[in-house]
């Protein structure tokens, strides 16, 4: 029984894990878990993952959640190139420094536009404009800190080479872009960084992974996004209520 990855490509951390595994030729079985089609809180998935989250890794009997933990696990187990998770003490510390800040300031913030523009309307919820504006302010602040503190005059977010940090950051930033918020406009340093990372990863891999998220807005406009079944409404409502 080989490595299994439970992923939903609409999810930023899932894309980061998928891109990493494919870029490094790590063989795995993709178990597509489409959260809003009701596949997520199913009994089978619950048995695998009591936290009911994606991404989830299953390696034999070993089950692991949290994208950063999964990325570190894969890089260690499959001995990927050093730059992803550098062995140097200080270089590695920079990756962890980014991941800590990312958990507080990026996660939960950059996913909001998809919720306000696509997911909430699907279940008839309207997110107040005040919250939308507040989220824009938080995103602006985070982008400023990303540019000044983490990128600075470096090529990549945690150093001079691509690392797990860049992967996590980029897929999060792509989420609002997919629903029409062009965060990179007016931010040439950030745009240049994005180009560098994407050039390294390769456009084919990215297109393949980002297909669903890049199509979501068009689908929503054409009313082609399936309505989430009632059993997922409670967790959707909970997520929406958490938007500050």
């Amino acid at each position, binding site marked *: 029984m080989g490595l299994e990855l439970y992923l939903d490509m609409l999810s930023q951390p899932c894309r980061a894990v998928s891109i990493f595994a494919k870029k490094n030729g790590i063989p795995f079985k993709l178990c597509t878990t489409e959260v809003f089609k009701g596949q997520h809180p199913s009994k089978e998935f619950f048995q695998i993952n*009591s*936290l009911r989250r994606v991404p989830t890794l299953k390696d034999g009997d*070993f089950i*692991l*959640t*949290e*994208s*950063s*933990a999964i990325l*570190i*696990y894969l890089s*260690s*187990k499959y001995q990927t190139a050093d730059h992803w998770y550098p062995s140097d*003490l*200080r270089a*590695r*510390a*920079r990756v*962890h*420094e980014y*991941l*800590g*800040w990312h*958990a*507080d300031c990026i*996660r*939960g913030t950059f996913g909001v536009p998809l919720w306000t523009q696509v997911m909430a309307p699907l279940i008839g919820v309207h997110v107040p404009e005040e919250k939308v504006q*507040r989220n824009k302010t938080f995103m602006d602040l985070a982008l400023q*800190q990303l540019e*000044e*503190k983490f990128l600075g005059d470096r090529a990549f977010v945690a150093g001079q080479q691509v690392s797990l940090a860049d992967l996590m950051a980029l897929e999060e930033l792509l989420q609002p872009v997919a629903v029409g918020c062009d965060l990179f406009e007016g931010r040439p340093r950030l745009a240049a960084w994005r180009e560098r990372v994407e050039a390294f990863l390769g456009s084919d891999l990215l297109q393949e992974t980002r297909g669903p998220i890049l199509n979501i807005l068009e689908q929503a406009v054409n009313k082609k996004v399936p309505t989430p079944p009632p059993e997922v409404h409670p967790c959707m409502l909970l997520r929406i209520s958490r938007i*500050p």
Partner: protein
Amino acid sequence: MKQEVPERGVLGLGWRRLKGTGSGPRAQAAYRPRFRAWRLWLVGVPNVCLKMVLELYLDLLSASCRAVYIFARKNSIPFDFQFVDLLKGHHHSKEYIEINPMKKLPSLKDGKFILSESVAILFYLCRKYSTPSHWYPPDLHTRARVDEFMAWQHTAIQLPMSKILWVKMLIPMITGEEVPAEKTEQTLLEVKNNMQLFEEKFLQDKMFITGDHISLADLVALVEMMQPMGSKYNVFLNSSRIAEWRMRVELAIGSGLFWEAHDRLMKLAEWDCSTLDPMVKEKICKLLQKFR
């Protein structure tokens, strides 16, 4: 043991080096015997070299700072305790912004190398000072479990625990306004649910999160779960398994060190908030919109 945190001197005049006297954390933690300074003076080494000792910028009111402090002390890592008083808004000072432009604690300064984020700092200290392996076990699966907890805890434990302190005490204290009961109830419920998840997913029937020995995950978990105690709210009452784990972690750390680190938090209710800088108060009020 009563913790006296010595004053650092007015920040505007720069950092003043205090002699290692008294019982404060600085004196205990600063393993820089005076004789060494004397020897260096004799050989004409400039004072700047004395700054090569590790510096940790901390306020033990913050759970993240307590984790770093306890870990460094427990492992006898020599460091200079640089007190950055959150209640006086010193994290917004020009001097501290040079250390950490994001104005957050804790920060580590090792020579010219400056590092923020408590988890990154803990991993750095572990490796640099070759602490016993149970803190961050090298086994692939065990380590992954620690990494998993460290990622999960940001939003699942740290944030809601800190929120309880804000809604139950700090917001009413600083702004003079009570938080709507509904918001408070929501926060308490979130904490209750997440404590349950912690027990089912991370602790289970084990002594500690990784098994038989304490690790960084237990340390971080516990200091964060202590945060509501600042407002006299005890999250350990609902589960005997968690209460027993709490005691085990305290004992593994050492009760003396544990309670010394938590002294400032436990005395928070006595804080005279009229001393809060008005500019800082304004910043806090803006921040608090998130919690209302």
